[in-house]
């Protein structure tokens, strides 16, 4: 795989991820604005978020049950995962072209990311 191909692959990964996230969030936003669901949001005080919006499992469940906020949140989760997926794709690409130095470098970054997410820092 040439450098140019690596660039196109990573560029495509980022683009697809971003579009998927944006579409999901926009759909959720549309539901929210046009369904007239009563809500009492008050962003002046920090109230946190209900559980169905803070855990990945909860977000998936609420999104698939058609909850507008859940769908938006799912879009946000997809957005957050884009850089991580990008690192994973880069790792695969470097390994595929037998670039062991950068495969190792990328693997270290991915491992650090996983540690960071797992230890809940």
């Amino acid at each position, binding site marked *: 795989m040439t450098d140019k191909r690596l660039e*196109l692959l990573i560029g495509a990964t980022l683009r697809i991820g971003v579009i998927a996230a944006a579409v999901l969030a926009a759909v959720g*936003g549309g539901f929210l604005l046009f369904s007239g669901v009563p809500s009492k949001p008050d*962003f002046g005080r920090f109230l946190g978020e209900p559980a169905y919006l803070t*855990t990945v499992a909860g977000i998936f469940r609420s999104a698939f049950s058609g909850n507008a906020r859940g769908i*938006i949140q799912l879009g946000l989760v997809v957005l957050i995962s884009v850089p991580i997926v990008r690192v994973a794709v880069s790792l695969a690409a470097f390994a595929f072209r037998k670039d062991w130095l950068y495969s190792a470098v990328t693997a270290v970054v991915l491992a650090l990311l996983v540690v*960071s*997410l797992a230890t809940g*820092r």
Partner: protein
Amino acid sequence: MLGCRRILSFSFYSHEPHALCCACGCERRNAISLAVFMAIVAAGSIGAGLLGSLTGLGGGIIVIPLLTLALGVDIRYAIGASLVSVIATSSGAAAAYVREGFVNIRIGMFLEVATVSGALLGAFAAAYIPASAIAVVFGLVLLYSAYVGIRGYGADNPVVAPDNLATRLRMNGAYPSAGGVRLYNVRSVVPGMGLMAFAGILSGLLGIGSGALKVIAMDRIMKIPFKVSTTTSNFMIGVTAAAGAGVYLNRGYVDPVVDLPVMLGVLAGSLVGSRILTKARTGALRVIFAIVIALVGMEMMYKGLSGRF
């Protein structure tokens, strides 16, 4: 735009939902409707995405004040929004920059080791180190860099002789410019890594994207051409932000109503910005960058000195 629909509005001053009917002669209370709130945030976020994609920064510098000062949103929701803004700027702009050949992927990946490690360290150390002191130091660094940046108006880094380590790491590269493809060499990899780790630590400690230091390290220390520095910084900041995003999501800092317009606005802004950057003159970009980091530097110093961190 939504005509005479019933939009449930919410007030920042009371907790009761009001019916707000625009064109039907109903009384408009002292409240902002959901749609208007989102529109304001989206408009500001477009600016944030635009600026972020041109300078290699994350957009949080616009998003946080917009939300906290202009719209009275709690700082924690603003932090979640800033995170979303950084990831959106990063992914949105980098998608274009990588394809166009500006981003130096190898340098980005290599430096990410330092920056993500630093972020982890910074997060752990956050309990032990006073954030205000760090903020002041950070502010000073930015102000100094802004000063140096303004002095060097118009001059991009000249091509330097190849450095042994950088060459062995295959970091030297090329980028597209008006005059065709330009080659460049990279120097001072180890000091660059050091500053990256510091940038990561700051990010973990202060919770803000460290795009400014990334650009400064690549531009000043590693002698990389400016457009490569900012685009590679864009490429990197998303990863650093994503590392912390899971935690903020769990803590409830990420709100769908606040962050939806942030995400869409920033993405739109970065789309425009990435088109502009390819044609912009490096000198103009440097000046914009210097002005922005001067402002951020002053903000950091103010917050640090007044103990608001």
